[in-house]
């Protein structure tokens, strides 16, 4: 260990040296299956435990100093959420959100498949921090067995003083929205409810409920071990740490990578082997994200601050590379139809607005005509008018497509399309029968 290294570390000995290894959350090599409890503890050491108000307040303050934000898409400051739930009048509940209903995203599934104990550490810790006795871990069906196995290992080892309950999430796009997740856990119905109240005030059975993405909890478990200073040794001042990204489309080695926040987007693509073909566009953040020109977005730092130059943000960590010979309008039309179908069906503007927008985009993509004024009016009448942010996210994505694929819109109006291959870069499940 050289002097520079020791200078950057909290003084905690050998475990801290291991902690500095990158990647922080993912294994250095894939393919070994989930880390057992023994492997987990030998890599990361024991989770520090504490009790009582002062301990909680100190740890929440440390998370605040670390600058950890939610990794589920909204990037809300984690310490503020913890403090809000901890300060509630009733016994709180913790729900770890590993539903990952977005079809293109795999980072939460990969994290749970590789390091389930890191997430469970974070869920248990969060429960201690807010004074909850139960942590409910809701995961995608694909990783349920792994997480069940990890929870059983911990029970056998009598590791936790918090009860861990594992559930499978609803296989719906909106199923990960906080109020929909609470309703799924409580009643098996994954529908969002109107706010206020927020679930942090009144969630599961009326209790203050901490809903936190599983990647956020994994970072939390490491901050508790090695502190804010260690966490901030990666990333930018405003957005510290590392983040998991899912890279799909025309890259040589698609998959999930852990990257340092703030590295140039072109380097993020490089972590997946770089472009496998000339690129036409990038979808950044997720299906609620932003289309961008690769030449413009490539040099930008992968951070909310950096990507704001193209109206984007890291969101849920998706980067989809669209090859130049696939039509971006056709891809957008497919995703818009999917998002319209995935509306929970509760709010009129979401049901009818997203449906109308998806129809208009299908017509545009197929060269059946385009009324830009009408589409813009529909987007304005849909955005911000649901109980949750589903319509807002869908409209944001469509709006960025209209800006980036402008020349393509003109070509389509004249009966031409750039597509030499059918769309399908962005995965969309088969339509449900009504």
């Amino acid at each position: 260990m050289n002097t520079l290294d020791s200078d950057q570390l909290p003084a905690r000995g050998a475990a801290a040296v291991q902690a500095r290894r990158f990647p922080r959350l993912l294994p250095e090599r894939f393919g070994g299956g989930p880390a057992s409890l023994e492997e987990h503890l030998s890599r990361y050491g024991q989770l520090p435990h504490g009790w009582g108000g002062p301990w909680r307040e100190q740890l929440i303050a440390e998370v605040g100093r670390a600058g950890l934000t939610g990794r589920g898409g909204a990037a809300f400051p984690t310490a503020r959420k913890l403090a809000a739930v901890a300060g509630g009048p009733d016994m709180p509940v913790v729900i770890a959100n590993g539903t990952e209903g977005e079809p293109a995203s795999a980072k939460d599934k990969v994290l749970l498949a590789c390091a389930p104990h890191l997430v469970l550490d974070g869920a248990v810790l969060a429960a201690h921090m807010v004074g909850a006795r139960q942590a409910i871990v809701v995961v995608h069906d694909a990783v349920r067995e792994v997480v069940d196995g990890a929870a059983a290992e911990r029970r056998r080892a009598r590791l936790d003083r918090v009860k861990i309950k594992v559930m499978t999430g609803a296989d719906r796009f909106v199923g990960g929205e906080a109020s929909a997740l609470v309703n799924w856990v409580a009643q098996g119905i994954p529908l969002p409810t109107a706010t206020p109240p927020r679930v942090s005030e009144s969630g599961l059975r009326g209790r203050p409920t901490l809903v936190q993405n599983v990647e956020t909890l994994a970072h939390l478990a490491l901050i508790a071990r090695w502190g804010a200073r260690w966490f901030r040794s990666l990333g930018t001042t405003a957005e510290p740490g590392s983040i998991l990204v899912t890279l799909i489309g025309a890259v040589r080695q698609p998959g999930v990578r852990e990257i340092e926040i703030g590295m140039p987007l072109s380097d993020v693509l490089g972590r997946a082997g770089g472009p496998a073909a000339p690129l036409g566009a990038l979808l950044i953040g997720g299906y609620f994200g932003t289309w961008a020109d690769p030449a413009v977005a490539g040099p930008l730092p992968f951070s909310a601050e950096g990507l704001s130059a193209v109206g984007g943000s890291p969101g849920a960590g998706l980067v989809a590379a669209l090859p130049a010979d696939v039509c971006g309008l056709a891809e957008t039309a497919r995703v818009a139809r999917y998002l319209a179908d995935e509306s929970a069906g509760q709010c009129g503007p979401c049901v009818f607005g997203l449906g109308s927008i998806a129809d208009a985009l299908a017509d545009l993509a197929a060269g059946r005509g385009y009324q830009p004024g009408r589409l813009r009016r529909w987007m304005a009448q849909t955005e911000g008018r649901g109980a949750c942010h589903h319509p807002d996210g869908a409209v944001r994505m469509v709006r960025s497509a209209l800006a980036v694929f402008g020349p393509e819109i003109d070509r389509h109006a004249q009966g031409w399309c750039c597509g030499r291959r059918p769309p399908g870069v962005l995965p969309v499940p088969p339509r449900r029968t009504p």
Partner: protein
Amino acid sequence: MIAGARLRLNPIACDGRGLCAEVLPEMITLDDWGFPIIRDADVPPGLLDEAAEAVRLCPRLALRLDHPSTTPAASRPRAG
């Protein structure tokens, strides 16, 4: 200055019956599908009676007048 009443819509309860837009066209228009758009939630003092009437007439109980000083948001029953 004391904050005035605010007109709140629960989009889940709303079914687009449209009575509110007839009673209170100064504040409410309908979108292309017949659902109400509240232009500005702050109710001008001169329209308080009409706003209260719109709340009373809504067959879906989707409209509400919030008086910030008297109605804490967290005490509301949850929809759905």
